[in-house]
């Protein structure tokens, strides 16, 4: 349930953004709160949201069939959930389930896409910042893949 | 005078004297009477090694040795020199730091066990024919084994040793002690030092003591005072040896050179030739790495713990659960050479190399540490110009 409009988004993702760009982004953002057990998104659904988390914990997970639920990452304060809105076909690849009540600024992906097409400077800023998020996530995933605590004897 | 420079100010120092070749066995018997087991160069299996000696006839009389990368031959000399060879294949290390040492034994009792120290009367050894580079190596191992946790096994042997040094009057094909600042003349740390002088039938030794114990032995020998020409002859011969080093190693900035080039292509090149046989570490007089072995008796009632020489060229050497840290030949050669020439200085305030050249002579494929350093140095220079 949206808790109202915002004029400024306080989140590391958007730190240092110009006032002009901030105003434009704030125009497609709102604050929201999600309770334990709620899904922010489900695999396969259209991805038209991005969540800039300021509190709580969100689990990225998948139903692994006979393996049960597989949890791949937990996102928390200062993390960003959702970059599928950037790339066609704009579908979520994971379930996002709330483990501890989440407070987040929600961005409207459709509106962001329109913004960045119209204003390439803003588009550049956004893609640069989301690339950093993706890069961090990739690095963390590689580390998990390495299974550093495993028994490699 | 070069020959006396080395002993100034030392207790028990004497002026140089002369011991005739025909009286040389007096030295061996004096040492034996003092309770020492004389160990010296002997000819065995076509090579000169160190072993127990009873008299000068056990020494490799009239023999010398040719050294080059992966090459060694004992050949005849034109004279009857006792110390006319360059360097035996094995070093004094095997006496001071034996290849195998029993550390202790445990006995099982009532579900627990008790530990008994290895009780063995340490030998009193007189090392006869210690070269300058070898005495430098012994001084290096002294530092290694007397650090924060002194090793009583080493010390119990070391502190009983009597050292008879022999100055080099010739240099072998793989010698580079001059580069490492360790020879060819002994400067310190000996009980007695000899220089062998042969002119036609005149065969004598210039001799002097470096310690009170050395002076004591000296006082029991039939000596004549040295004349100035004896000293200048010895000095000349030693200088000639210094001028005829078979190899040289440029140590200038060597730590920085090796620390800055851990990925130099030369490491791959040398690794492709290296057989990982560990010969270099076995013959090296300073290499000190060891491992431990546990030997339970067949019925399990006792278990011995041994220390044995080990080598950084073995795969097990760097093994931690999961695998060996230095799994490639390149990494192992790099570890050995970088330790020997660079990190050793950080650890012990001295290079780990004394320039004896054994690792070159006894490498089955003739890998030459001096050439490897030079290659990294020159190829590094050429990199810099790109």
């Amino acid at each position: 349930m949206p808790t109202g409009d915002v004029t400024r988004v306080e989140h590391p993702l958007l730190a240092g953004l110009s006032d002009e760009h901030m105003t434009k982004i704030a125009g497609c953002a709102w604050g929201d709160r999600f309770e334990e057990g709620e899904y922010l998104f489900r695999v396969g659904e259209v991805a038209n949201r991005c969540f800039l988390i300021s509190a709580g914990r969100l689990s990225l997970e998948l139903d692994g069939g006979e393996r049960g639920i597989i949890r791949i990452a937990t996102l928390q304060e200062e993390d960003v959930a959702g970059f599928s809105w950037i790339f066609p076909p704009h579908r979520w690849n994971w379930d996002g389930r709330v483990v501890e009540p989440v407070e987040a600024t929600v961005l409207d992906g459709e509106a962001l896409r329109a913004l960045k097409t119209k204003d390439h400077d803003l588009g550049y800023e956004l893609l640069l910042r989301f690339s950093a998020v993706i890069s961090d996530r990739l690095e963390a995933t590689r580390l998990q893949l390495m299974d550093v605590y495993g028994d490699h004897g | 005078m070069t020959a006396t420079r080395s002993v100034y100010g030392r207790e028990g120092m004497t002026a140089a004297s002369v011991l005739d070749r025909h009286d040389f066995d007096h030295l061996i018997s004096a040492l034996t009477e003092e309770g020492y087991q004389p160990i010296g160069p002997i000819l065995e299996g076509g090579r000169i090694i160190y072993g127990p000696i009873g008299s000068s006839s056990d020494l490799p009389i009239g023999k010398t040795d040719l050294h080059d990368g992966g090459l060694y031959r004992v050949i005849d000399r034109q004279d009857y020199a006792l110390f006319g060879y360059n360097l035996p294949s094995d070093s004094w290390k095997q006496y001071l730091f034996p290849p195998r040492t029993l550390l202790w034994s445990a006995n099982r009792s009532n579900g627990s066990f008790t530990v008994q120290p290895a009780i063995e009367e340490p030998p009193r050894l007189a090392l006869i024919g210690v070269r300058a580079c070898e005495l430098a190596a012994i001084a290096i191992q002294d530092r290694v084994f007397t650090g924060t946790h002194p090793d009583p096994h080493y010390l119990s042997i070391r502190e009983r040793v009597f050292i008879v040094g022999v100055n080099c009057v010739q240099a072998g094909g793989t010698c580079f002690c001059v580069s490492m600042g360790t020879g060819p003349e002994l400067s310190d740390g000996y009980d007695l030092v000899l220089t062998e002088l042969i002119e036609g039938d005149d065969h004598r030794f210039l001799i002097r003591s470096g310690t009170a114990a050395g002076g004591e032995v000296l006082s029991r020998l039939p000596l004549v005072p040295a004349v100035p020409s004896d000293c200048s002859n010895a000095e000349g011969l030693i200088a000639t040896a210094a001028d005829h080093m078979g190899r040289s190693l440029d140590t200038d900035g060597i730590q920085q050179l090796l620390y800055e080039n851990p990925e130099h292509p030369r490491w791959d090149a040398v690794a492709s030739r290296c057989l990982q046989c560990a010969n270099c570490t076995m013959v090296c007089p300073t290499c000190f790495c060891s491992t431990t072995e546990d030997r339970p008796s067949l019925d399990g009632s006792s278990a011995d713990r041994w220390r044995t020489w080990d080598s950084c060229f073995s795969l097990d050497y760097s093994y931690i659960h999961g695998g060996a840290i230095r799994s490639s030949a390149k990494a192992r050669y790099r570890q050995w050479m970088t330790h020997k020439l660079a990190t050793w200085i950080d650890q012990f305030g001295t290079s780990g190399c004394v320039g004896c050249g054994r690792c070159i002579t006894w490498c089955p494929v003739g890998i030459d540490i001096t050439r490897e350093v030079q290659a990294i140095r020159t190829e590094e220079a050429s990199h810099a110009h790109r």
Partner: protein
Amino acid sequence: MCTVTTAEVLPDPMLTTPMVVMARRQETADTFTIDLAPPGGFPFEPGQFTMLYVYGVGEVPISISGDPARPEVLTHTIRRAGKVTQALAGLKPGDSVGVRGPYGRGWPLEAARDKDVVLVGGGIGVAPLRPALTHIINHRADYRLVSMAIGFRSPKEMLFVDEIRQWRQHFDLDIELTVDAADDTWRGSVGVVTRLIPMLDAGEQAVAMVCGPGVMMTFTARALRDRDFQPENIYVSLERNMKCGIGLCGHCQYGPLFVCTDGPVRQFSEVERLFGIREV
């Protein structure tokens, strides 16, 4: 002649002292903790290790994982990995183990006084940090903000489960826990331990103590640097093959360092160069 000290007066540092196993706890499928009864006590500094000997089998270096304020108990947490740790795993209360030590340089608990402290432990690397955190808890007023990030492979490979729960109940400790992989019965964080580092409360002059597998320490140091930690304020615990524990056997060399006597704990600034070299 040799001018060194006389061997007769020296105790032989290679002699081991038998100690009786008082208790044994299974932590996970492959990891266990044993308490030994050291005759006369066994004072140690957090981060130090001992050489543990199993009769007739061999000797291994193991970090001490117990409480430094209780020298009457000598505790090690051990992962079954090789021949000797396998034999240690088979010990029962009443059996004996040979002990030498304590050896090595421990955690900089003096240098960290009056500063913020961040501990980061991964897997069996949590064990050597446990005495450090225990010391800090025992002397809580000596330190400012204290936090710890702990990572395990999975919930069932967690060590010190009850104790971590107790630590988390301290109002003046921030203990963050994560696992690399989990199912939906796990309510905590999932992800690598480095992801916890931005969340920890600590100022720029904070002291970090890091212990875990090499890869984990490399990435943790990087994450700490991203938080403007000074490289000289980051301490890591190194691991190498060791045969003697006292700087004589050569096995534990890491560049110029003998990990047994110069380490295992070193400033990251001192080893950063070596971290970048393969197979060093």
